[in-house]
């Protein structure tokens, strides 16, 4: 493979040599170098990098406007070694912002470029379907461009579809809306579905019903204190600390801040409690989708979540919106009396194996459940990589990709745990992965608890010395990701030398995962569509941001 030196690190000089004239200039981002290329060379460059140099994962596409130009950045990395990162920067003129689309090389670029077009206004030439994705079709202007006036009135339509029962098309298909208000869509998702009898011919997820301008919010707030409460509200299935970590990691690397070891343990423990909480919600709502009512499994999952939420509340002071991380550490130490708190966690951990067994008895070993899940909603590893799928969905397709191990952060590399993968590529495998991850998270928490119990009292440093105002150097750019509950949650920040980020881009795992829905559901039955959607475990707050 070109560009990898013998000791396994990336050799950017060789990559540059391979690309030859395509590289106009080299930029240094904080996470990895980036090559600047011409707007009409996107396809060629990315194809070379993908086929010859093994960059098979397009993590994210960031678009932004400068005073003098527009820019798209393609953040590339490898599924097998995520620490091999490379940015491809595509500047384009202010008068006519355009560049070639990457969607023929990476399928995931389809949605990412639609979002970039929608919010920033860059025209992707050669894109198969360049229309707005988050905002309604009738929206005027591109809100993250510099000259956008948000006080302008807007008109949003509520167009009625024809009654499909009165009017059938010649080919006997029927159009049906699922959502945006529907119990099976896990929030406000709208699926435009075409059916042939009971079979799904085409499904087009229509998102943006919860687009709360998270990126605009973060761009108007300071690094030090103000941004941290917002990540809790991206993936709000009580996965708050995992999201906070994504921001903390990016901002700490950008501002060159250290985190004390003790704080890393607190972070790791809190984050894994959040992962358990988020996976319990996935289990409960998936049971809701499969069994169709508020049955025992949903109630059990809620009961178990209550226990975890109560632990997290003791730790952070809130049940869901924790705001517990600070840059350089956490806000406070364990609650006193420490032993009481730690034994509360211990009681919970002791009950986890029996709890997992209970879920297995009720679900995975249930014949009806298996009929609904095994060999349904197939997502092959190749297709998954094309769509930039990460998290339990990717691991259920046998892709061994977990940033906690592969791009280490926090205290994970000092602990003993495994990455759970399954090879079934179906709904059932994704579910097994989630149950397995609950067990692994419990294992991680157990080790953290032991460490905390024996940690010397005079060495409990919860936060390093962090300046009151944080101003990263102007034009510093970084893309950093963590393994959140749903997969790779990445943050791109560009600094302009002030206390606020000039561009704050969120790479949401749910966004990429949801784009595979049509691959999984088309050709199957309607109930399988619902099961497949449930198995993706999307949270609309994170899809739409």
């Amino acid at each position, binding site marked *: 493979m070109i560009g990898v030196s013998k000791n396994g690190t990336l050799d950017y000089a060789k990559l540059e040599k391979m690309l030859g004239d395509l590289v106009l200039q080299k930029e240094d981002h904080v996470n990895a170098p980036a090559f600047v290329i011409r707007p009409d060379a996107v396809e060629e460059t990315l194809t070379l990098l993908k086929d010859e140099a093994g960059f098979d994962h397009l993590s994210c596409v960031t678009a932004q406007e400068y005073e003098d130009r527009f820019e798209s950045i393609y953040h590339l990395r490898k599924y097998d070694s995520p620490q091999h990162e490379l940015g491809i920067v595509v500047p384009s003129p202010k008068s006519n912002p355009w560049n070639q689309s990457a969607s023929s090389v990476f399928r995931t670029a389809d949605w990412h470029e639609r979002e970039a077009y929608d919010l920033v206004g860059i025209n992707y030439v050669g894109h198969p379907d360049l229309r707005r994705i988050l905002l309604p079709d009738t929206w005027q202007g591109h809100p993250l461009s510099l000259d956008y006036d948000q006080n302008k*009135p807007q008109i949003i339509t509520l167009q009625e579809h024809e009654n499909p029962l009165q009017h059938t098309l010649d080919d006997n298909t029927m159009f049906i809306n699922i959502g945006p208000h529907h119990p099976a869509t896990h929030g406000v998702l709208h699926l435009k579905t075409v059916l042939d009898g009971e079979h799904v011919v085409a499904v087009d997820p229509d998102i943006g019903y919860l687009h709360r301008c998270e990126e605009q919010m973060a761009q108007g707030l300071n690094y030090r204190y103000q941004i941290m409460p917002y990540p809790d509200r991206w993936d709000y299935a009580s996965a708050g600390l995992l999201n906070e970590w994504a921001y903390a990691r990016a901002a700490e690397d950008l501002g060159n801040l250290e985190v004390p070891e003790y704080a890393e343990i607190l972070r790791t423990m809190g984050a894994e409690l959040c992962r358990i909480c988020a996976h319990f919600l996935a289990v409960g709502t998936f049971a809701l989708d499969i069994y169709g009512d508020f049955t025992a499994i949903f109630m059990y999952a809620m009961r178990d979540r209550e226990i975890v939420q109560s632990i997290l509340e003791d730790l952070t002071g809130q049940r869901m919106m924790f705001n517990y991380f600070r840059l350089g550490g956490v806000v406070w130490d364990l609650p006193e009396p420490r032993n009481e708190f730690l034994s509360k966690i211990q009681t919970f951990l002791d009950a986890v194996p029996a709890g997992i067994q209970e879920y297995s008895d009720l679900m995975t070993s249930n014949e009806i459940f298996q009929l609904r899940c095994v060999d349904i909603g197939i997502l092959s590893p190749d297709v998954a990589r094309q769509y930039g799928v990460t998290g339990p969905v990717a691991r259920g397709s046998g892709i061994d990709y977990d940033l906690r191990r592969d791009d280490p952060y926090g205290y994970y590399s000092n602990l003993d745990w495994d990455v759970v993968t399954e090879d079934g590529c179906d709904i059932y495998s994704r579910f097994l992965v989630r149950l397995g991850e609950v067990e692994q998270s419990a294992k991680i928490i157990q080790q953290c608890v032991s460490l905390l119990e024996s940690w010397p009292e005079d060495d409990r440093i919860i936060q390093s010395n962090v300046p009151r105002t944080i101003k990263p150097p102007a034009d510093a750019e970084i893309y950093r990701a963590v393994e959140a509950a749903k997969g790779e949650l990445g943050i791109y920040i560009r600094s302009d030398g002030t206390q606020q980020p000039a561009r704050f881009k969120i790479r949401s795992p749910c966004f990429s995962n949801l784009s595979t829905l049509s691959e999984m559901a088309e050709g199957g039955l309607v109930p399988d569509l619902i099961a497949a959607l449930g198995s993706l475990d999307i949270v609309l707050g994170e899809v739409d941001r």
Partner: protein
Amino acid sequence: MTVDPRLNSRLREAFGSSPFILTKFDSFMDWVRGSSLFLLQFGIACCSIEMMHTFAVKHDLDRFGAGVPRASPRQADLMIVPGTIVSKFAPRMRRVYDQMPEPKFVVGMGSCTISGGPFHKGYNVVKGVEEILPVDIHVPGCPPRPEALVYGIVKLQERIISGQRSPVTVDPYELEKFGDLDTHELIEQLADQISENDLVMRYNWSDSP
């Protein structure tokens, strides 16, 4: 006629020999309405997670006679609005509200439904549910704890049982036909995209609080 002794409560003893009670029809209906609310199963954002916890074990909203979520708006009489409302969703929410039969009640859950909450500066965020629907009870919090939501719903039940109705004090965005809108530069720009009979919602962001 003898009554099954299991049905005899202390209340019945208190009534004595007469099995009849005397009340006004309206108060009786108000009592019935307040004591068996059917909720719309309706999630928007973060608050819907806490709303699920309110329905589920531990908090068990059904103890108060208000805990049966219905998936169809036509079977529901209480809509809890649990989350941030954005421009694309508001017309759909309005439609769901219109589909609920009268009498109907709305509880706004969380700061977003009061003012847009932490997102009130967003270009796409409706500044509170009252810009779209009349609201009976606001429950503040981000998100409110399940106990707070239970309190809000119980307060609503008290109001319903005592026959109080909230006046609509807002001038909400309405669904209008595109052809009926006042002329504006924006309307001309959109004229070839939207037909005259299509329903639209026009957001005048600069007038928002």
